[in-house]
């Protein structure tokens, strides 16, 4: 069901953990839906010098968290903001249709952490970032019973 890449990032997740003095922290999803991602960023001169995560969730949730942190490390904030769930998906050689929402969650987690950083530094006007609730199905990842196997 999962690609080798996904299984690798699930069994050996990169960047698990917390950053004590993180410059931005974002959490998305909720326990009700079975997926919570928490992302910690260390940002220096507009560049993400470190990223760590903690995730409660399925294999895909862990793997997308792991891959997402890998993708943003060393990137500028601008660059990081342009990393979409598709990029995470592709980097993992794809996910089963029912798991696509996990990649969306990873994108949202990055955005939430970046937003937290901006807020702390007065770079945004939004009081609170509106993250995806994480509850599956809201982001176009609906199963299509007619056309797709799952």
């Amino acid at each position, binding site marked *: 069901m999962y690609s080798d890449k996904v299984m690798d990032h699930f069994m050996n997740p990169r960047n698990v953990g917390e950053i004590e003095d993180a410059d931005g922290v974002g959490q998305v999803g909720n326990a009700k839906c079975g997926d919570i*991602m928490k992302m910690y960023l260390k940002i220096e001169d507009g560049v993400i010098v470190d990223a760590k995560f903690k995730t409660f969730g399925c294999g895909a949730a862990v793997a997308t968290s792991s891959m997402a942190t890998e993708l943003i490390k060393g990137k500028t904030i601008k660059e990081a903001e342009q990393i979409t769930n598709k990029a995470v998906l592709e980097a993992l050689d794809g996910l089963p249709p029912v798991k696509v929402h996990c990649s969306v969650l990873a994108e949202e987690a990055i955005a939430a952490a970046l937003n937290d950083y901006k807020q702390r530094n007065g770079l945004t006007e939004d009081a609170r970032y509106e993250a995806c609730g994480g509850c599956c199905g809201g982001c176009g990842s609906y199963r299509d019973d007619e056309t797709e196997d799952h």
Partner: protein
Amino acid sequence: MQKRVIYFDHAATTYVKPEVLDAMLPYFTQEYGNASSVYSIGRSNRKAIEDARETVAKCIGAMPNEIYFTGSGTEADNWAIKGAALAHRNKGKHIITSSIEHPAVLAPCEFLQKQGYDITYIPVDQDGLVNPADVDKAIRPDTILVTIMMANNEIGTIQPIKEIAQVCKKHGVLFHTDAVQAAGNIPIDVKDLGVDLLSVSGHKFYGPKGTGALYIRKGVKIESLIHGGHQERNRRAGTENVPGIVGFAKALELATQNLDAHYEKLYKLRERALEGIFEKIPHVRLNGHREKRLPGNLNVSFSFVEGESILLMLDMKGIKASSGSACTSGSLDPSHILLAIGLPHELAHGSLRLTFGESNTEEEVDYLVDCLAEIIDKLRRMSPLYEDFIKGEC
């Protein structure tokens, strides 16, 4: 390198026992005649089917002409529920079931609801038990059927079927029980239980997949689900799956003969696993009733972690199990059974079902406990919920 495989998912499906396969084999390539034919090759098939029917009847305390072979446990459940609903709709359109039934029962009920039937879902207590008094209270003049499972597929809880049957009898309402998980694990005697309809499925007791049976008490009126030829005394059409029927009966016979030893063995493995897990892993809870449960069923929830992740990591260790997590069911919600016994979503997502079988060993159980301790620890260390919990504690 051949990886070690340890199978702890016998409630999902079992392997076919060699003796069962041996009994089936002649009917694939040699004794293949149509059982409805007049010629001799067909007659030997007819005899094989009727012998199988007698065997099955004996195993559950029924008469042979009360046994109808089907293509699965799900088909038997669908037949019982829709067939009774259709046959008795002139009396009323109210059906009672429980909140922890298998989809093979719930989905036909939902289907009937869309057809204008009225369904009452009896809640269960924190152990997953239905209270017969609740059934008594729910029965109305227009109630035509009560369907409550004998043993639960996820948490293993065994219901007071005899008491519920008495309630139904008192009111003159038909009673069906889904005994798919019970058959081969605990004794079944339809006369003693007093049920009208009872479903079983072959691949849960070391028989072949794609086989099942419905017990229909003599005198019970029920419409067919599959119409066509005259097979199964005009009640379930289609050329008989002779090897399947023979294998089904053989498997049930073997299971029933060895029931005490089977129970004892699975019970011991289950208790060993339970003790090991509670000893080595904190923040764990048992789901389902402590005593009134299937011998081979263990269902636990680990706080702060998610079930699919546990399964995947167990799989990497060669251990096969299952979970009530949404991620494993292809649906968006965690197990309705775990929610029905009052588990918060988080614990429902963190559930693990281990169902033991005849070929499992104590050594395998010990290996499981060690692996689990390691896996739960690893997953907790990457869980934001556990982080919050630890921070909250200090």
